[in-house]
């Protein structure tokens, strides 16, 4: 009890008599930190895509993620569909939903003097609507995914890999890989990159910016849904949760360089790593302070994010 509230460096307990204990603990923290970081990365990639391609800051991105998690939850509860499979069911809904949102809400705002600012206010409104819509249709109760593999883990040496986290991280990695391949290898993906590097030239060669942006937005929403499901494997969620996720998304994206998919993914991992390391070395109550403090330092040293903003 004496320790309550006082800041003291953590001592390695002598009773256990095993020096490796802390080493394992550090690595364990880093492993699970990295897995969670991968999910932040995926959430960030979609956000980054929209920001880079159309200068829209989509505050509702995390709300779409929560929506995805809820849809998957509904499928799981009502039909016993595993959330991983459930994603493929809801993917078209999210994709087309995103396209509709772009066409009727985002596109008309493109005429604003300051798209960044106007889109922020607009999507903030969207986020509130989505949050309370979920709350109305469902209820504000917190939810978690419960599948056959929740609360199970496999061990590699002394390190535990919780299945839900692992599945979430794998989903995130797969999602990021798909997005990366889409942008780098497919015709439409290349057109998307072209249109955000040189919108005018892109139009000259027949690229329809509105259609391309619509697809990009649909993809971003779909990836948010996937990220939301992955988050649902790690954290419980309620309609309000998106506020919190958004802050992490914001961090990851800016750290990784806006529009830089690879950078965003790496930044996600980095934040996971920072989190894991500080969990291992400092009192838990200081973890977030230290993570955010380190981010401030990183930003001050590298004022334009860690990675070059390229596409």
């Amino acid at each position, binding site marked *: 009890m004496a320790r309550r*509230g*006082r800041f003291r460096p953590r001592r390695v307990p002598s009773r256990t008599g095993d020096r490796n204990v802390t080493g394992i603990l550090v690595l364990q923290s880093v492993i699970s930190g990295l897995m969670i970081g991968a999910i932040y990365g995926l959430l960030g990639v979609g956000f980054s895509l929209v920001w880079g391609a159309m200068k829209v800051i989509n505050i509702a991105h995390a709300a779409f993620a929560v929506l995805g998690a809820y849809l998957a939850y509904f499928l799981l509860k009502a039909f016993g569909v595993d959330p991983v499979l459930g994603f493929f069911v809801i993917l078209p809904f999210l994709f087309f939903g995103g396209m509709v949102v772009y066409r009727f*809400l985002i596109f*008309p*705002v493109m*005429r*604003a*003097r*300051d798209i960044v*600012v*106007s*889109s*922020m*206010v*607009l999507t*903030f*409104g*969207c*986020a*509130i*609507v989505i*949050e*309370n*819509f979920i*709350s*109305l249709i469902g209820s504000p109760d917190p939810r978690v995914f419960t599948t056959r593999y929740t609360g199970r883990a496999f061990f590699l040496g002394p390190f535990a890999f919780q299945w839900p986290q692992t599945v979430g991280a794998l989903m995130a990695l797969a999602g990021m890989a798909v997005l990366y391949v889409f942008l780098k290898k497919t015709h439409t993906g290349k057109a998307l990159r072209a249109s955000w590097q040189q919108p005018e030239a892109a139009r000259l060669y027949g690229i329809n910016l509105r259609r391309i942006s619509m697809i990009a937005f649909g993809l971003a929403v779909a990836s948010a849904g996937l990220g939301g499901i992955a988050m649902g494997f790690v954290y419980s969620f309620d309609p309000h949760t998106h*506020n919190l996720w958004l*802050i992490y998304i*914001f*961090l990851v994206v*800016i*750290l990784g360089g*806006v529009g830089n998919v690879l950078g965003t993914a790496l930044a996600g991992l980095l934040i996971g790593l920072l989190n894991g390391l500080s969990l291992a070395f400092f009192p838990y*109550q*200081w973890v*977030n*302070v230290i993570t*955010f*403090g380190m*981010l*401030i330092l990183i*930003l*001050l040293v590298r*004022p*334009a*994010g860690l990675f070059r903003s390229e596409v």
Partner: protein
Amino acid sequence: MKPYLKSLLFLAVAGAFALPWLSPPVYFVSLLFVVFMYVVLAESWVLIGGFAGYLSFGHGAFLGIGAYTTALLMNHFHLSPLYVLVSALPAGAAAACVAAVIGYPALRLRGPYFALITLCFAFVMELAVKNLDFLGGPEGLWLKAMGIEVGLARGIFFEVMLVLMLVTVLVVRRVESSRFGAGLKAIKEDEEVAQTLCVDTPRVKLSAFILSAFFPGVAGGLYAYYLSYIHPETVFNIDISILIVLMALFGGGSSYVGPIVGAISLSLVNELLSAFLKAEYARVIYGLLFVVLILYLPDGVISFFRGRKSGAG
């Protein structure tokens, strides 16, 4: 300004000053106290966020710093609560000092990076205060209750907040038309060009940032007494920071009128919606309001009054 408008405005201000003494339900006094506080916050924010284009997402933290400074001063020196009127000034000064420390390095960052660093700053402040027991830690701080009747106390603080609001508005208005303001706007347009035009950009930005932290600090001092119990989750809440930005942008962030319109209209609309609709419906409509506003007036409410058509760029 047309003369009849001028007199109308004068009447409104005079009416506001008289309000607490016409024995209205105290709720109105309290509600307007909070609304005025938001006007102060959004108005100060415009100095750096609107004029200079540096979107600060951590401005709520200065409110918290002010609130905690006052609470600590009052509790430590056992001052009579009426001294809060004096102690609010150190609160503003404390916020300004923190702004100087944070702003010096942070203002080297541009665009989203500045937004992020201020967001992180607000976050760290909330968590750090929660973790430090000498600041009350997770328990928060209680302020000694006023020895006077509630209505009277609310009335006094209302008047002070009203004065603070007027001062803030006048200062921001003055800045807008000054050389200083022109420098800020030049920075927003193009910082490199501003530099070549002999604007000492680092100094101008920092001064604006410090000034924009001072008023929220003072407001925080008053706010602490309004609540009489403060907690990091209440006064350092990141939602306040975001609400400030939205209020300013909702009204239109590039002039001193925007935040007044934004803060007042958003607060009152929210209040009205909650009064007449079921909770979630009220929130849904509140959200739709932002969507519809931006669809029809992409540049904020004041663009409607100015009749300015957007899309020139």
